[in-house]
């Protein structure tokens, strides 16, 4: 285990961020490091890429990380099972998934009885898919939900015909398009303001290291603003970080650009929606946290 956030005599804090988020959704962090924005805020940021929210939670619990970038639904589930995690801000304001399906599919209704790829049983992608089905006039059980594992395997499964539809995130959508798959809809048009990825940490870390974490959040929001303001530089950073082609990076950036969170503020309605979906479609019989229990905006820039 680690020893929490350490500060040197000049007040520079070393902050360890555990992240299961990559690619364009994580661009504001990558760019902020690249542009020295975290440095400017006296934050020595160290990023560790991890597998999933479970490991993020474990890393926070064991003191191996000071803050984590994780999936919203994962933080909700962890809290339901007794973890004392707080959402302290978001990375993106809206969900990034685009529903792709075989050519000819025009709407979700056309997918009735078809195989819909999700990351895992009870995962956020499955909850969203179920909600989507209901939202678009089907019954929850009208789709066959096939867990395929990692997002990249969803693309593989879709392209090789193992599944009929999947919610993809850029840059995978362009590959799917190249292989003749078609865009059916964007999740953010159906579920506006649902925050997909959040920063989370424990209450004890918040009370012990509020100034440092605040500086971190300030740096992040500033980075997000920088990303929005400097398209070509941001694309270059994304291209290098995600090891993708210039075109793919550009397309991914353009898709994500409106949703970079320049305030870090989480939509209360969106969060409530997540909790609701977790109750309805998630795999838990535990009491789910309320928005107040979950969300702590005190670290956001401008809050007292």
């Amino acid at each position, binding site marked *: 285990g680690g020893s929490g956030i350490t500060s040197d005599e000049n007040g520079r804090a070393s902050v360890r961020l555990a992240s299961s988020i990559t690619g364009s959704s994580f661009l504001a962090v990558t760019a902020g490091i690249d542009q020295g924005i975290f440095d400017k805020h006296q934050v020595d940021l160290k990023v560790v890429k991890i597998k999933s929210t479970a490991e993020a939670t474990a890393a926070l619990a064991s003191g191996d990380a000071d803050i984590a970038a994780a999936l919203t639904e994962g933080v909700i589930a962890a809290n339901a099972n007794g973890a004392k995690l707080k959402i302290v801000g978001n990375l993106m304001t809206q969900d990034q998934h685009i529903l792709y399906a075989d050519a000819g599919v025009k709407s979700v209704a056309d997918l009735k009885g078809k195989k819909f790829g999700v990351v*895992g049983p009870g995962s956020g992608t499955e909850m969203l898919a179920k909600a989507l089905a209901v939202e678009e006039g089907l019954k929850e059980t009208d789709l*066959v939900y096939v867990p*395929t594992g990692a997002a990249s395997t969803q693309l593989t499964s879709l392209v090789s015909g193992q599944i009929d539809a999947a919610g993809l995130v850029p840059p995978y959508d362009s590959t799917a398009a190249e292989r003749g798959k078609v865009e059916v809809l964007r999740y953010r048009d159906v579920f506006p303001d649902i925050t997909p990825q959040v920063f989370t940490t424990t209450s004890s870390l918040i009370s012990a290291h509020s100034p440092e974490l605040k500086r971190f959040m300030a740096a992040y929001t500033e980075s997000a603003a920088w990303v929005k303001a400097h398209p070509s530089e941001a694309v270059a950073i994304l291209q290098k970080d995600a090891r993708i082609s210039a075109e793919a990076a550009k397309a991914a950036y353009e898709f994500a650009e409106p949703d970079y969170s320049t305030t870090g503020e989480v939509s209360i309605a969106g969060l409530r929606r997540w909790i609701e979906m977790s109750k309805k479609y998630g795999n838990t019989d535990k009491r789910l946290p309320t928005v107040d229990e979950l969300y702590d905006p005190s670290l956001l820039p401008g809050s007292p």
Partner: protein
Amino acid sequence: MTTTERLPPLAPPRRTAGGPGWWQRRRGLWAPVVTVAIILVIWEALGRAGAWDPLFFARPTEIWSGFLHLTDGPLWSDLAVSGQEFALGMLIALGVGVPVGMALGSIRWLYQSFDPIINALYSTPILVLTPLLVVWFGLGIGSKIANVAIMAIFPVIINMIEGVRTTDPALLRAARSFGAGRLALYKDVTFPAVTPFFITAVRLAIGKGMIAVVVGEYIAATEGIGYRIRSDAEAFNTGRYLAGVMIMVVISVLIMSAVKMAEKRLTAWRPSISE
């Protein structure tokens, strides 16, 4: 002749005076039970003493109630699905691995040509090849069977190679001298000589196969015990997901005990483990 007039001993003589005690004789049966019981008690006590965060790990009693929960659900059909994947995968692993290993171990040019390839394939992390598995074997039962077979076949091949190479040449020579053909040689000499290696291979393969079922069902599944474990893990239902893991573990221990019983019959000729 005096020998025939000798009095018989009054009682059947035994190795040690009084003979081995009750515990000695039944130790094979009870020792593991006692060990497991002790471990469970320590485990439970540590948990109650707060040795870990209940979010990530659970006490035996919590796991037990998780198990009761699981039995409410489609546990049996999950086990049936996973069992089928496991059985078919193992069948392939043993059916292909044993002859391949024996051939590689006994034919020099095959060994020289393919041993590095076997090593290469064995050390390829199957995890990074999951996209390929999906493309080749689909998301259905095929990819899980392939997963089990691929994970389980290498311990089999590698153990069989080494076993064949260890066979006593004097026995091979004797059998050939008495007219054993190539097949008879395998059947009467190589295979029995390899039995200890084969048993090890089977044990290793079973463990690997079990894990492969879970991993395979992580990739793509709609039912099966691995699928259930995963969905509980994602929801931080620690008691329940550990119960799922324990079910797998108990099943594989049971299968291995069956293998050990089979081993006893196959290797009655071997001296048993020394005191």
